[in-house]
């Protein structure tokens, strides 16, 4: 292949890649540029910020714990199961990612609400999870779990089956194979999935508003506070969005760093 062709191909790839990078980064940059330092100060000292940020961090940590705790066994099962039924179930797990969030909120109300499917069966008729912090966590789990399960399933599928076979031959029980062999080997996939899922629940808005409502300190997460502020002053909303972006970027960078460390640790072992 000629040197010119090589350069052209490499250039083409770079242009395509950088084009998308620019498209993704520019709106964030514009958000920062459009917000003056004084507006950012006003935004940070806005009375809605503190309680909303605290609630967002609390609920997203809880929902991440639930998603990882229950999603890892589910992904392990999906990765090992074969057959048409298993593929159908795997697709079913992806559905909440497709449903528009506000509709997801209605669906949650129709399930866990006062007149919901489970009323009078899982809990007494006339009581409801709606308007509670628990409802916020449930809404976040519902919309974010698909991202984790998908990443974790592909993580488990990438494990060399021979390694699992060896573990079994040495007499390891299924739970031990799962926790001591499979999970450590799939760790990069699990971490990446956890990060995606956490980011999705941090930004979650529509299902929360519909299912949990909007009450300061109880169900008003940062995205809801941003939207509430937007109704009176869009500049405050911009400043709050910068807080959200900064928190998310810091935590996602932290995950990247952890990922790099796990990868390095894995090679060393």
């Amino acid at each position: 292949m000629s040197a010119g062709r090589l350069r052209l191909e490499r250039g083409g790839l770079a242009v395509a890649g950088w084009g998308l990078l620019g498209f993704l980064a520019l709106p964030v940059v514009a958000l920062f540029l459009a917000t003056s330092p004084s507006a950012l100060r006003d935004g940070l000292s806005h009375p809605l910020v503190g309680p909303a940020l605290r609630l967002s961090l609390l609920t997203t940590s809880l929902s991440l714990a639930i998603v990882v705790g229950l999603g890892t066994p589910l992904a392990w099962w999906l990765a090992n199961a074969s057959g048409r039924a298993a593929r159908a179930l795997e697709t079913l797990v992806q559905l909440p990612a497709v449903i528009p969030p506000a509709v997801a909120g209605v669906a949650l109300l129709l399930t866990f609400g006062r007149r919901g499917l489970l009323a009078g069966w899982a809990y007494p008729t006339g009581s409801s999870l709606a308007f509670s912090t628990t409802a916020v966590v449930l809404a976040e789990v519902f919309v974010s779990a698909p991202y984790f399960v998908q990443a974790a399933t592909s993580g488990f599928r990438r494990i060399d089956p021979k390694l699992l076979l060896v573990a079994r031959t040495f007499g390891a029980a299924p739970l031990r194979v799962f926790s001591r062999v499979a999970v450590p080997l799939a760790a990069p996939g699990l971490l990446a999935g956890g990060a995606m899922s956490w980011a999705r629940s941090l930004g979650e808005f529509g299902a929360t508003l519909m299912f949990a409502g909007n009450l300061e300190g109880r169900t008003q997460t940062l995205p809801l506070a941003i939207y509430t502020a937007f109704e009176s002053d869009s500049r405050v909303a911009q400043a709050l969005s910068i807080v959200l972006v900064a928190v998310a970027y810091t935590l996602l960078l932290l995950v990247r760093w952890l990922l790099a460390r796990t990868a390095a640790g894995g090679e060393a072992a």
Partner: protein
Amino acid sequence: MTQCSVHRRREHRVRRAVLALCVALLATCATACRRKAPADALSHGRLVVFAAASLREVFTRLGSDFEQAHPGVEVTFNFAGTQELRSQVEHGAAVDVFASADARHMDALLRDARVLDPVIFAGNEPVIVVSREAAQRVRTLAELPAAERIVLGAPEVPIGRYTVTLLDRANRTLGADFRARVEARVVSRELNVRQVLAKVSLGEAQAGIVYRTDALTAGASVTVVAIPSELNVVAEYPIAVAAGAPNPELARAWVALVLSPAGRGALAQAGFGTPRAGASP
């Protein structure tokens, strides 16, 4: 011949073609624009109407009337919260008519010279909606604190602001702690009227305060309790032609239709109050 010179010649050809295309486009545009006399401005083109979400049903109906009266004209709507629409207009959206559910947003656009001569065309009054199981519990405004779970609009959105005003007024006649007694029952402060309505009609909340027009869309799933008019606040809806309207003739015709007896009839049918003709905000 080297590859490079072929490339350059091709580039020249492309550049010349693009230039020719531009000239041709400019020429057609110039003739077309000159040909567009005011007489037939009402018989073709696209009218873009930005309107508050609560106007969806009425404006959609008036839109098909308008298209019938002006064959060749296509009416396009953008229904959303007034604040969102205002932001879009401020960021230069191509809009012909703006109909707002809140005079304050219209005033702000008027100050920026983005709209021309707003006129109040409708009024919408807050009412209490009560879920089926609480229908016997809340039959008047005074009984509102008897509801176990109340959902109101957030004070940042117009319905929430009107709610605060009317509850403050009610303090004078229904006891100084009336607003506090209501707010003690509030489980959520929603960001739009439809969210309030959804929660009451699903039975999650027992009572809420929404506009009369929204309450009418919920049918039998809620009961409507009127608020005494001496305490109530009427939301005024202004309409205006956008300053940079691509189709000012069509825009003026639309405003005229909304203010006409037919327009007022459609608004009244949907539950809107219609003000005296020619009132200004």
